[in-house]
């Protein structure tokens, strides 16, 4: 797994009480974890449940985390497992992303809002094999090697999938523009 969190300084370093270390993880990563859960599950309710479940498991297992510098990758991996487990048992209802618009507090021009919604629609329509590494790269800020470890793929496969993901997005947006 990754040797450090995405920036140069690990969020936790093994010092402090378990509760202090946990609080640092929540403060640093809860929003990214929620976002990743949302784009994986395509539902705010499921994303909220997955985020809670992820941190619940993280709390329970925090003392066994062998490399505190890789805590972010660890949390994202727990989340992926929880999502897979949820889908294995029962496919959740994912109706609240059907209009491809998500809460946005920006005061943007209508064409900018339209462009964003087109991009969000294009992201949700990507096959998961392409969407997953792209989300990990853009939301998580993980390197190709880190993504490869998280997805149990080799680095070349990840880079190929990232290439295809952006290529597909570009083609999709260009074809939408022509329509």
């Amino acid at each position: 797994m990754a040797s450090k969190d995405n920036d140069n300084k690990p969020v936790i370093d093994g010092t402090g009480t378990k509760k202090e270390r946990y609080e640092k993880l929540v403060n640093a990563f809860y929003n990214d974890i929620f976002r990743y859960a949302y784009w994986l599950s395509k539902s705010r309710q499921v994303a909220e449940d997955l985020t809670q479940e992820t941190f619940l498991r993280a709390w329970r297992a925090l003392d066994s985390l062998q490399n505190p510098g890789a805590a972010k990758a660890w949390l994202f991996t727990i989340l992926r497992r929880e999502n897979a487990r949820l889908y294995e048992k029962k496919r959740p209802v994912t109706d609240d992303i059907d209009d491809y618009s998500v809460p946005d507090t920006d005061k943007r021009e209508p064409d900018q809002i339209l462009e964003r919604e087109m991009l969000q629609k294009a992201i949700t329509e990507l096959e998961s094999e392409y969407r997953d590494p792209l989300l990990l790269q853009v939301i998580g800020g993980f390197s190709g090697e880190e993504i490869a470890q998280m997805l149990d793929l080799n680095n070349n496969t990840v880079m190929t999938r990232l290439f295809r993901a952006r290529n597909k997005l570009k083609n999709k947006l260009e074809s939408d523009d022509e329509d």
Partner: protein
Amino acid sequence: MMKDQQFNERAHANPHDDSTEFLEAAASSPERQHLVVELKQLDSDLRASLEAVSAPEGLKQTLLDIPEGMLHPDTEVAAANDSFWRRNAQYAAGLVLAIGVLAIFMQSEANPMEGMVFSHIYSELEFLNDDTPLALAEVNTVMNSRIGSEFMQSPDMENLNINVTEDCWVDIENGVQGVHMVVQGDVGPVTIMVLPNTPVEQDIEISDSRFDGMISAMPGGTLVVVGEKEESIERFSTMLAANISW
């Protein structure tokens, strides 16, 4: 000098690549520079679109408010009556749902390891379609580097059609790294996981709607074998167990 096709692929895979090789290749032509600018703009739009989603108000506090029963596991039974729940009634429904989901998982699984094994397999189903042959020596290189064990060079092992050998994080919660393999069985692909720890105390038969499997506690670790319903799991499990040098 990097060829156009290679540059194109690398730029799409990571337009923010700051390696000297990539930057020099980008600087070598206006077209390449334009492509990088275009892809960085796409990434900026992509990031803005993904980050337009924010966690609900109150979620962070919910996560931070660890129930007293979890802070002190010996009082976990009393958690339902703890003041945490009264102080945070507005979030209780969400937490109860999450715990309920967890409870359903726990009720439906004879052992937590069973759920972890199947989750791992379903999250990596693409492994089952890989038919690239691997030599036993390559497998043992991975085995040795990850868990310090290897398979014996026996006729049984040499005849095994191994297609995948990767790191395995099935036991992620305990931070234990193992090895994940896929071999060809009589019916279809068979997943094998070898872990250096022993999360189970005795052999456990596992199954779901598609797969059957066996989790075997061994003197030096754990062996997991999972295949299609008609597969002879026991044959693989027995053969592999006899051929691992822990």
